[in-house]
């Protein structure tokens, strides 16, 4: 099952790269892109864990399709919120959007 392990390692790498991207980005659009990398890492891990000798299992594929569609809708929502944030604050830098503090 060497393929499975390669996939899992890649998935973990994608997850942490995405998280690091979310932490360092100074632009909300980039944060959302990094978030998608995290999500795809998770999807890949899901796919890898369902991989058997006969290919992916039906159950994991079902969950994968669900997860991808949820990810897409989350992205759409996040982008629309970003537009509102930009209109409201005039900036997309997450370090300057500090209203949550109060």
């Amino acid at each position, binding site marked *: 099952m060497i393929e499975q392990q390669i996939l899992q390692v890649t998935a973990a790498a994608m997850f*942490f790269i995405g*998280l690091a991207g979310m*932490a360092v980005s*100074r632009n909300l659009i980039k944060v959302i892109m990094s978030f998608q990398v995290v999500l795809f890492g998770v999807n890949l891990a899901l796919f890898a864990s369902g991989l058997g000798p006969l290919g992916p299992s039906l*159950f994991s594929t079902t969950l994968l399709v669900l997860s991808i569609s949820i990810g897409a809708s989350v992205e759409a929502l996040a982008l629309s919120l970003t537009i509102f944030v930009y209109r409201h604050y005039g900036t997309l830098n*997450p*370090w300057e959007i500090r209203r*949550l*503090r*109060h």
Partner: protein
Amino acid sequence: MNPYYAEWLVWLLPLSSVLLLPVVSLLGGRAREWFAAIIIFISAVLAVTLVPTALAGGTQIAVSWLPVYGLQLQVRVDGLSVFLALVVNLLGFLIVLYSQGYMGRQAGLTRYYCLILLFIGSMTGLVMAGNFLQMYIFWELVGICSSFLIAFWYDRPEAVRAGLKAFVVTRVGDVGLLIGLILLYVDTGTFSFDALEALARQGGIASGLLLTCGILVLLGAIGKSAQFPLHVWLPDAMEGPSTVSALIHAATMVNAGVYLVARVSPIFGSSGVWLTCVAWVGIISAILGATMAAATLDVKRVFAYSTISQLGLMFLALGIGSPGSWFASQFHLMSQAAFKALGFLAAGSIIHLLGTRNMDEMSGLGRKMPVTFAAFFFSVVAMSGVPPFIGFWSKDLIISELQTGGFYLFFALALFVSVFTSFYAFRAFFKVFYGKPSELIQSKPIHESPLTMTIPLALLSIAVTVLWLLEGQVSRLLGISEPAVTSPWVYAASLLALMVGFLPAYCLFFRRSPEPSHLLQRHRWISTIQNVLIEGYGFDPLYERTFATPVMKLGSAIRTIQTGILGKNMWGILIFLLVVALVVLAI
């Protein structure tokens, strides 16, 4: 199979019309109100069409839900579920009708009717559920609806606090219920009531586990039904509109706990310890509720404490564990639902007019509101158990079961509760309608409420007068053979208790000799007791000190970690996850 698919529609119809209601409300306020009322009316009719199925022994419909986990969606049609569906939907219909007049024109009515429909639909779904998991989903829906409705006037801090309190306090019980049913599932691999009952009967569940799960499930019921020690949320829930109080107390929320105990008693009832717990929780709540109701000044709180007390009697009856007492508890549930809904709606009619809940400010209302006066009177006599109103028969059924079962301690305590019940009920009645007219009464034009409010009052008044005739039919519906004949001694004892409670209320608050305020001045100890009762035996400060304050402090301590800057928070998450990953790899 029911020709109208009533098994499904009776709960799916209100639930799905929640989504439709905002669309209908675009047509205007009246359309919205009638839409909600008609939907609940159709549900009630559908529940009626289920009665023949239930009389024929009931059925259970199962469809595949999550086949991976072997879960099924089970709709259970038996006497108990149809009986409760009837109570919920018929009372729900009257309350929605009454809401039209009571809520009038104010902001947020779409939210109000959406939540009411969701509330009634979830409660019906709860009683029709055939397994624990499905029931638990509706259980939580009922909880969230009730707390939102209590906090309906969200610009009032007390209302928001009361809603939050109801949510948090019932959550304590719900966690118990959840743990209990997960434990049962892990051991038996099923959530279904039928399968668990069969297993318990064959002795397929270890008795220790059965008792633990039983107590945990009982904790859930205690939270929902506001029993000791989780009764503190119910009096505060009076901050919501009176219609919501009526719905919570009569039709939906609190009945869920009694229903749950009645439903699981075939599973856990083999354990004597469990039954004893149920009975003691019941009698303690009954005594606490009845005594607190005797001292409070808020007219809605009288009814709220009375609910705690009446539900306590139902728990007590369920704790006896015989088929007769099981029936008595359900019959008392119906009776309590009818007279409590009537009481809240009648009180609501007065509050709607006067804008106060304090009984001292209402005093001397007289007969200027004839329908409300009559409705309040009917509610009070039914509550205190004056024959031939329904409260008399249902309470005596419980008391006579206690006597025939040989539970003489409980018998005596239940009579003690009866004394207090008639005292606080008549006290509220005399205080509101008799005595010197208060300044508020003299300064305001008093008139009867509109027809949409008085018609439900009239219908409920008729109901509490004649419903006892249905005792035989209800027992057939619930599948219990005709209850044993009550001995005349029980009737005599309960009438005596009624008189013992009525006379002081009559002297103090009707004839006013001795004048209550003089009595308080002369005897210090009475006012001390009164203060303890008004404070609710100090449960609130106790819980505040031991639970609420530490949690709030912890919360504000943790709050400092929350920087509010997305970038910083992401760094925190990243470092945390890296540490977790390293730890996992190291192991």
